[in-house]
């Protein structure tokens, strides 16, 4: 594994959703210096025919439906190119889940830091999304866990804490999450569990 952490964008592909003009030519020039290949597209953008690792877009003239993905769910980092700071425009850009922005006129200074920030923000958001999905999943499985807990309490005539300890260690032994294990627990298995737990205790 490489331990060289200096940001390097060599080989990345950028799509620039903007009318071609001097700003865009300067941006493309600088992306080229950073090893990024860019394609200018306006307004029809198709990810299949123009694959992208990041997307720049015109924050001043962008509109809903410009992007080939559901609103606010970009699959790659999004960078807004803006000159208008009208609150309505900023609100629209934020609603697209923009990772960073560059102010027009675009200069060579600022592009590198914007890319570093955009990639970091995007990665962080992805990570948070994954965490949120995991947590949501756990919450939605709460009734399942609750049912399993009751089953163990009932089969073994146990207090809630003792029943939960059995459930947790059984899930761990099976290398499953508590939710997963709980969803497969039926009456027979619960009795089996309680018995083997008592046997362990007896041996100890």
């Amino acid at each position, binding site marked *: 594994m490489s331990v060289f952490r*200096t940001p390097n964008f060599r080989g990345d592909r950028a799509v620039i959703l903007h009318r071609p003009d001097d700003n865009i030519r300067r941006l493309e020039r600088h992306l080229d*210096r950073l090893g990024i290949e860019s394609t200018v597209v306006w307004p029809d953008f198709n990810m299949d025919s123009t694959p992208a690792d990041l997307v720049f877009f015109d924050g001043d003239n962008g509109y809903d439906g410009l992007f080939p993905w559901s609103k606010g769910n970009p699959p790659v980092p999004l960078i807004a190119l803006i000159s208008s700071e009208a609150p309505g425009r900023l609100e629209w850009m934020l609603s697209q889940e923009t990772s960073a922005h560059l102010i027009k006129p675009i*200069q060579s*200074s600022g592009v590198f830091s914007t890319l570093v920030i955009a990639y970091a923000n995007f990665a962080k958001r992805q990570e948070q999304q994954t965490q949120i999905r995991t947590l949501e999943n756990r919450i939605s499985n709460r009734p399942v866990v609750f049912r399993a807990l009751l089953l163990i309490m009932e089969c073994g005539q146990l207090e809630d804490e003792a029943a939960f300890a059995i459930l947790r260690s059984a899930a761990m032994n099976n290398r499953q999450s508590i939710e997963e294990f709980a969803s497969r627990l039926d009456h027979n298995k619960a009795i089996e569990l309680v018995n083997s737990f008592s046997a362990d205790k007896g041996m100890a």
Partner: protein
Amino acid sequence: MRREIPVGLLYSTTGAYNLIGQDCLDGALMALEEVNANPSYDFQLSPKIANPGGNIDEYQRLTEELLRKDHCKQIIGTVTSISRKEVTPIIEKHDGLLWYTAPYEGFECCENIIYTGACPNQHIVPMFEQVIPEFGNKVYLTGTNYVWGWEVNRIARELITSCGGEITGENYLPFHSTDVERMIETIRETRPSFILNNLIDSSSYALYRAFYSAGKTDDFFRPENCPIISCNITECELEEIGYDAAEGHLSISPYFENLNTSENIHFLNKVYKKRSKKRPVSAFFVNGYATAYYLAEAIKEAHTDDIEAIKNGLFNRKFQTPLGETEISSKTHHAALPYYIGRIKSQEGFEILPSRSQAITADPYLVNFDATQFAKNVNNIDLVSTPSHLTPPHLKVVK
């Protein structure tokens, strides 16, 4: 009467790092004088000298003056990255062109700057490629507390980590501080293979002197055992360091006075006619000279000092300079430069160690840097792809 074109020369010739500023200025002035005396240039370059005196607050005001009052579209100047960053917005606002001649930490590519000094793939990377196989991969990092030291040391840290080495310590000093004793003690305790010195000015001189003093009682502090290496120490600072203290330590530079090429010998003969042979000629002097020549050549080609035309006249052509053959890239605005590693040999300047003399294309964002290949090179794993100069007979294999 030839038409006159004003050229700003913005260097601190008093105050901190004045030795470097003076050399840059003197080199540029020598080239301007030659151009003005040469009828093949149908213009005169009139130098407008501004001296910020090492005071960071003066740079913006003086740049504004050069651009507005003196009508300079071209400014050759600034040594430190702080001062370059300070003047960049002013230069951009007036659409001027800054010619920056010093080595720097990279990660910049401004449309209004021409970079003629070395960036990391032309200094720290080749320096490490040569020094690590010889001395080992345990490094002590030091620097003055600003972006040059921080960034060059950060790159050094990544290079060292990627080849399995170790950073034995990292310490910074504020500007002008000579409080280097703690560094000496850390070095004594941690016994690195070599020291990377990114201190500047008086702090840097103090380090060499304290190291030298320590060497009188502890052999570890001798350059043959643990050299201090630098990416910006040149001939112009040796006397100030003290020749005895500087002796034996290493520096990387696109130029050393002892360079034995016909271009350099011819150049030095011209310099010695103008000033005492006792004053050494440094890379700062030569790069000031070469840069003023690039400018003159580009104006000659463009027939104007308009900056876009000048860029067209400048890029992607070869220049014969005392540094050897150089070229400035239209893509990065950076010069392709050779590198040499020199060992300080008292008043004689630098003894040039075997190293490659072909110019290396600048890669200011280290886009094409390959950490795996670097590790292979310094760990001597793949001898086939290792340049022969990296395998001297006394090479120690570092595992």
